[in-house]
């Protein structure tokens, strides 16, 4: 059997105050579009705060909007009884079908599900059936789902999956508004301050409040004189104030004068103090609506104001702002943390800090400079002096001297070497990670981040860098997205006072396919040229290389190789490698005679390692150190032509 909706319990007869505004808004939304917004909607409140009114109000409003809607309202007891009756009559299935076809099911007092496993299972099944077909279920209880004793965990989860909302006790303003409306409905009028005096009593149950109003109406009906605020308070249950006064001894008027005064003062104080409560309640609505836990503010509402509520509100809002900042940072670092509940509880900022810290640690640092290159290992010459001095100045005072530094030079002159060496010097001086990579790798990482939908985290990696060094910046030409990202990163790092260094094989003025806004920013720093290495530098490079590879340095050999007319250090290494390969093939130490033979005369063919190898191309002895430094030992020209022909 289904109870009918009480015609008086409509939305328009409900007094909406701070305590029930959120629940009312949710109820209205559900009534306007059942099954689409909050499903299930679970409303809980202590007895007498208007749950049933709200529940029936949903039914009335939904029917008013769509008269064809089937609405069923019943209390849990009725639900249980009808189920038992149906099962006894062998009509269990028909019963289930009946409720599964309801568009809007309103179940009151579900706290009585306690220990009723069978009904819990039935409600679970029904709730699932209704939700699957986009039908709405609304439930009320005097306590939250988790506090209903022995309630199936699955039901708790189902309820939590919709919207669980509570109605608090009405505040002073709402109490007075309820009294006024109910007095109007009863066509009773009271003198000034009477209803306010009753409203100032802390009666937080609407039924009791209406009971108090009934007493006032009854008293006024039999009294010749209009009811005074103090009498009203006494009648309504605020007798403690009057009771403390001395017994009336013929001077009742004298006592009344003071009581009146007291009553008025009480009403004024209650009104003013309760304005804080209204403010706190508004804050709860706001922050709860934004998904934050408002336990602290709710506790404040329950208190008798032991602390300055303004201060509590300020602190709470500051905590929420901290959580928002941490959330923004963490979700930048790890997109999976976006919307995480770890950032919703102002009582657990430490927890949010921990999660953010983990995200910070978990984020990969940008690629570091290769540790083998040191600034001190570089040979200074008149040609590279300016670049080296600029690098040393930057290493001494990062971001204070030249920012950015742009090193321009042809391929193989040692830009990368200088860049990584400077990167290492900066890493030794600065606290955070130093990012050092080629523009090619930079673009590759960006593409991968786009692919993984992790661009914010990728950006955060570089934004966290203490210094940023990018090799071969000219390679960003025609890569619009890379240029955009680089531009934004550039601005961010400059504003944050971090050092940046770039190298380019192309003079900036010739980087036509690089956007002007980026090019001009590069030009705004210090642009230094790194020319081809001079003879002395080449000779020193050979000497060091011989020392490292052979163990001894033949000065004559070093002078000869250094004198060869090549344009880059890379080429010097290439020449030396050819000589060393030949020496190894002959089984003799490298000499200047052999070098002349290899570089100027006919070169002795190295023995073929394998008869099946057709290219004749072999890797240099000592293995490949770096892809950029590979020197291929080509056979003679005839073989090469054949090789290329293939």
């Amino acid at each position, binding site marked *: 059997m289904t109870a009918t909706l009480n015609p008086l319990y409509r939305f328009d007869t409900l007094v909406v105050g701070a305590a029930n505004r959120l629940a009312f808004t949710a109820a209205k939304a559900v009534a306007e579009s059942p099954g689409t917004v909050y499903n299930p909607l679970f409303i809980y409140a202590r007895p007498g705060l208007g749950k049933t009114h709200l529940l029936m109000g949903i039914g009335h409003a939904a029917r008013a909007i769509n008269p064809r809607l089937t609405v069923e309202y019943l209390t849990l007891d009725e639900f249980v009884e009808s189920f038992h009756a149906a099962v006894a009559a062998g009509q269990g299935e028909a019963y289930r079908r009946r409720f599964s076809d309801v568009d809007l099911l309103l179940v009151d007092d579900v706290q009585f599900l306690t220990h009723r496993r069978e009904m819990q299972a039935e409600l679970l099944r029904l709730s699932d059936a209704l939700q699957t077909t986009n039908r709405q279920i609304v439930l009320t209880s005097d306590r939250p789902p988790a506090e209903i004793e022995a309630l199936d965990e699955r039901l708790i989860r189902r309820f939590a999956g919709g919207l669980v909302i509570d109605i608090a006790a009405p505040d002073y303003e709402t109490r007075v508004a309820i009294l006024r409306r109910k007095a109007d409905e009863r066509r009773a009028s009271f003198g000034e301050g009477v209803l306010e005096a009753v409203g100032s009593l802390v009666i937080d149950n609407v039924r009791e409040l209406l009971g108090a109003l009934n007493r006032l109406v009854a008293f006024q009906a039999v009294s010749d004189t209009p009811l005074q605020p103090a009498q009203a308070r006494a009648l309504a249950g605020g007798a403690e*104030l009057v009771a*403390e006064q*001395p017994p009336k001894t013929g001077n009742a008027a004298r006592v009344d004068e003071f009581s009146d005064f007291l009553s008025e*003062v009480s009403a004024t104080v209650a009104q003013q103090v309760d*304005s804080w409560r209204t403010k706190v309640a508004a804050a709860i609505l706001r922050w709860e609506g934004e998904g934050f836990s408002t336990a602290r503010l709710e506790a404040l509402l329950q208190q*008798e*104001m032991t602390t*300055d509520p303004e201060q509590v509100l300020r602190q709470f809002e500051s905590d929420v702002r901290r959580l928002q900042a941490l959330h923004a940072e963490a979700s930048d670092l790890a997109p999976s943390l976006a919307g995480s509940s770890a950032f919703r509880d102002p009582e657990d900022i430490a927890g949010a800090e921990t999660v953010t810290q983990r995200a910070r640690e978990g984020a990969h640092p940008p690629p570091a400079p290769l540790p083998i290159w040191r600034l001190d290992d570089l040979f200074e010459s008149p040609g590279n002096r300016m670049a080296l001095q600029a690098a040393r100045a930057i290493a001494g005072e990062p971001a204070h001297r030249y920012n950015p530094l742009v090193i321009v030079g042809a391929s193989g002159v040692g830009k990368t070497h200088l860049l990584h060496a400077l990167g290492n010097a900066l890493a030794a001086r600065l606290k955070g990670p130093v990012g050092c990579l080629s523009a090619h790798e930079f673009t590759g990482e960006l593409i991968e981040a786009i692919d993984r939908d992790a661009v914010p985290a990728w950006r955060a990696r570089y934004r966290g860098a203490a210094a940023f060094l990018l090799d071969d910046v000219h390679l960003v030409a025609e890569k619009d997205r890379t240029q955009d990202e680089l531009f934004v990163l550039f601005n961010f790092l400059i504003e944050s006072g971090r050092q940046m260094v770039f190298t380019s094989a192309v003079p900036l003025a010739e980087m036509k396919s690089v956007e002007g806004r980026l090019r001009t920013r590069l030009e705004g720093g210090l642009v230094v040229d790194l020319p081809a290495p001079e003879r002395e530098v080449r000779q020193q490079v050979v000497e060091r290389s011989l020392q490292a590879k052979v163990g001894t340095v033949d000065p004559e050999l070093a002078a000869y190789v250094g004198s060869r007319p090549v344009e880059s250090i890379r080429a010097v290494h290439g020449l030396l490698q050819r000589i060393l390969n030949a020496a190894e093939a002959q089984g003799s130490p490298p000499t200047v005679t052999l070098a002349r033979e290899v570089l100027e005369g006919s070169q002795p063919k190295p023995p073929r390692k394998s008869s099946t190898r057709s290219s004749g191309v072999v890797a240099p002895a000592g293995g490949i150190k770096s892809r950029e430094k590979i020197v291929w030992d080509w056979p003679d020209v005839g073989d090469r032509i054949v090789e290329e022909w293939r």
Partner: protein
Amino acid sequence: MSLVNFTAREITCKIVYYGPGRSGKTTNLQYVYGRVPESRRGRMVSLATQTDRTLFFDFLPLELGSISGFTTKFQLYTVPGQSYYNATRKLVLQGADGVVFVADSQARRFDDNLESLQNLQDNLLAQGVDIRQLPVVFQYNKQDLPRDLILTPEEMDDALNFRAVQSFSADALHGSGVFETLKGISEQVLKRLAAGSAVA
């Protein structure tokens, strides 16, 4: 002085009855004292001369009990009206949350009223308080005297109440208007709670 102390959960209001000598300030306090149940009133301190003139000041503490969780106390003071006690008036006026200006309605005291009101303004200003920012009500006392001796409340308003604050006619000796005046000033003082004008 702190009006609302959230830590101690206390509301304390200091209300000063001001006005020319013999206008009835002490009479107001005595009437209130007589109407307050013993359990709620402190000892009224009154330092008077042999001729019953206030020498120093009257002080009447009222305990209104717990209201909305706050222990609410009112402290009612009067000042000596005679012009030569200005130092005492200044002292009593310090930290006042509200002022009741008790004017003598007799026509012959017209100038004394004006002088005392001017003195109130000066004394407040000396303490950095603008009278326009402080809750003030007027009480036109002795309205029970023969009509030909007194000015009507309207005439009193015209003469003194040029900022149109609340005013009450009274006969403090018999109690008429005393509590109305007290209620009026209390309401104004307490309403400043909402503005957070004095938070501990």
